[in-house]
């Protein structure tokens, strides 16, 4: 965890990949691709997916999993929109709207954190597998959301909140500011604070961390609370952008977040991973999918591409490591033979 001044090779490769992708689409489509609009559309979609990826990243890093992130995003934003309706927030003055949104948002965060707390409790104190716990939680919350809405979309987001989803400042979408801000905070948290550092160590060997005098159960609870809170922010961004919320919005993102986190260098077994590389991986994938969109291909092709890119990247890494090991052995053999 100590600073190494060298550029992370994973980061470098991702950036090279990004440039290659840009070059490819520019060659194919020229100015149509290389436009402000393209990058703005990337910048609008990226934040919500990015936040969900970070929500998946924290549990992954600790060797866990969270299948409930999308549902938590849905349910909390549905709660928000319901409160907005009840108090007719859209009719209020701008100042009051801001205040109400802030209050409701905090309440949503608390609900999400309660869900996270339950997940964390089941994982750490009961000792159940995180995939199972979050699967149960996901199904349960989905049921709650569907009962409340009959599965329909609910619309009517106050203007102030819409601003957070749809406006730009200096041509940069507001959601991007939010995402970058949270990503930086999370990065600092993960690398600089005790809890962040514990999360990495827990991902490698939770028992050893426990026997180092650390209350790991509390840390695990915290991980799922953090994950749920991040999902809530993503849910609010989606709600602000679509002017509505529904159980099922963003369902397709669920497994995608895992792919992005892994492509961004997170170790699927936990213990290693960085917010910064994940952000770049996200950029690469969004650029590919936007590019394909401009070329008029279906979004499903980009879905397939993402899977292929991940399988390819991981195979490449395996083969490279394998080859490196072989070279070492050959060298060692040569060295000993020369001795005699």
């Amino acid at each position, binding site marked *: 965890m100590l600073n190494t001044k060298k550029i992370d090779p994973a980061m470098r490769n991702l950036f090279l990949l990004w440039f290659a992708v840009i070059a490819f689409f520019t060659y194919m489509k020229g100015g149509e691709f290389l436009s402000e609009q393209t990058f703005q559309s990337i910048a609008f979609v990226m934040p919500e997916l990015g936040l969900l990826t970070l929500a998946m990243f924290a549990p992954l890093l600790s060797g866990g999993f969270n299948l409930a992130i999308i549902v938590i995003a849905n349910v909390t934003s549905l709660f928000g929109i319901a409160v907005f309706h009840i108090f007719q927030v859209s009719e209020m003055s701008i100042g009051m709207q801001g205040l109400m949104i802030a209050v409701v948002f905090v309440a949503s965060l608390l609900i999400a954190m309660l869900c996270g707390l339950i997940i964390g409790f089941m994982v750490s104190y009961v000792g159940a597998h995180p*995939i199972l716990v979050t*699967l149960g939680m996901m*199904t349960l919350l989905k049921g709650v959301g569907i009962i409340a809405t009959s599965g329909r979309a609910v619309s009517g987001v106050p203007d102030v909140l819409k601003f957070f989803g749809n406006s730009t400042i200096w041509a940069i979408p507001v959601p991007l500011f939010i995402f970058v801000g949270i990503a930086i905070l999370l990065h600092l948290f993960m690398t600089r604070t005790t809890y962040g550092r514990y999360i990495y160590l827990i991902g490698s060997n939770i028992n050893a961390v426990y026997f180092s005098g650390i209350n790991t159960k509390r840390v695990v609870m915290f991980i799922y609370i953090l994950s749920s809170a991040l999902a809530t922010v993503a849910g609010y961004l989606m709600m602000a952008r679509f002017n509505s919320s529904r159980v099922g919005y963003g369902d397709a993102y669920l497994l995608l977040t895992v792919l992005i986190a892994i492509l961004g260098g997170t170790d699927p077994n936990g213990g290693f991973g960085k917010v910064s590389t994940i952000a770049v991986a996200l950029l690469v994938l969004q650029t590919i999918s936007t590019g394909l969109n401009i070329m008029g291909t279906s979004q*499903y092709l980009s879905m*397939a591409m993402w*899977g292929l890119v991940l*399988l390819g990247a*991981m195979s490449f890494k395996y083969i490279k490591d394998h080859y490196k090991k072989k070279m070492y052995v050959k060298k060692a053999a040569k060295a000993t033979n020369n001795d005699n």
Partner: protein
Amino acid sequence: MIKNLFNRMEFLIGIVILILIVVMAFGSASFFTVQNLMYQLDAYSGDIIFAMGLLVVLIAGGIDISFMATASASVYIAAKLSLIYHIENPILALACISVSAIAFGLINAFFIYNMKMVSIIVTISMQSVIFGLLMYFTDGRLIYDLPEWWVEPTNLYTFGSSGNLYSITVPIMVLALCIALTIFILNKTSLGKQVYALGGNQEAAHRIGINVGVLHYFAYGYMGFMAGIAGFVQSYRNSEINPSALVGKELDILAAVVLGGASLTGGKGSVIGTILGISLIAIIKNGLNLAGVSSYSFDIIIGLCILVAITITHIHERKKKLS
């Protein structure tokens, strides 16, 4: 021996199911009938066949998220080929489904075993690849004009008196065959025992001379095979092929299999338990339906079931460890 029985998840779920059946039989006259049983079997045949495949993968210590995509793609491929080349032979079409579905499974196994990747990551990726390509090439178009044998409801056997005729449908027949095959492999052959051994301790399996690679290919290949068959059954029941109808329901099947006592850490699980797991969910849904409860509440109850079940098993295990 009796104490052993109590320790098993299958037993617990069996009891719960029994209680539910009794309660519902009193509540609704139409619940406890052969008619309803046959209907439910027909309706859940696909799910159970998927679950048979997933069970084998879970016992082997892996996980598969891609099976719904595999099912959709392999059935679509077979249907398209049948239509293009005017294949009317069911055997040929089924062989085509099986071959492509098994191939998808083997690709999973290749990445998991040969490239040493984590199974959940590989199968999530494969789900994206298979489903993405399927939707890209088909634009999500449904196939209605299937060959006659594929869509014609056929009763293989009919029994009962004239007033109450019950029939064994094709899905029920296929389901029975799949269950029998899985039971046979898992319980009666050395292959099945090796799969359990692999899930129990992979390193030990390797050291004892078991061909771990072959087992990986078998487990994921079998999952693919079952997925293909289940996909066929679903298309048969619906008389159409909808490429996007199945994907997204993987976790429901996973929940049921785990409810039936299979473990995500491998080495545990049985066919009977798996069937009970699916039955539990089916009975709850069916019972609530008959009782007139909104179908929107299903998810809540299933979610609660999962959470309660894992809590019970873990508290149980902890007690066992202490004693």
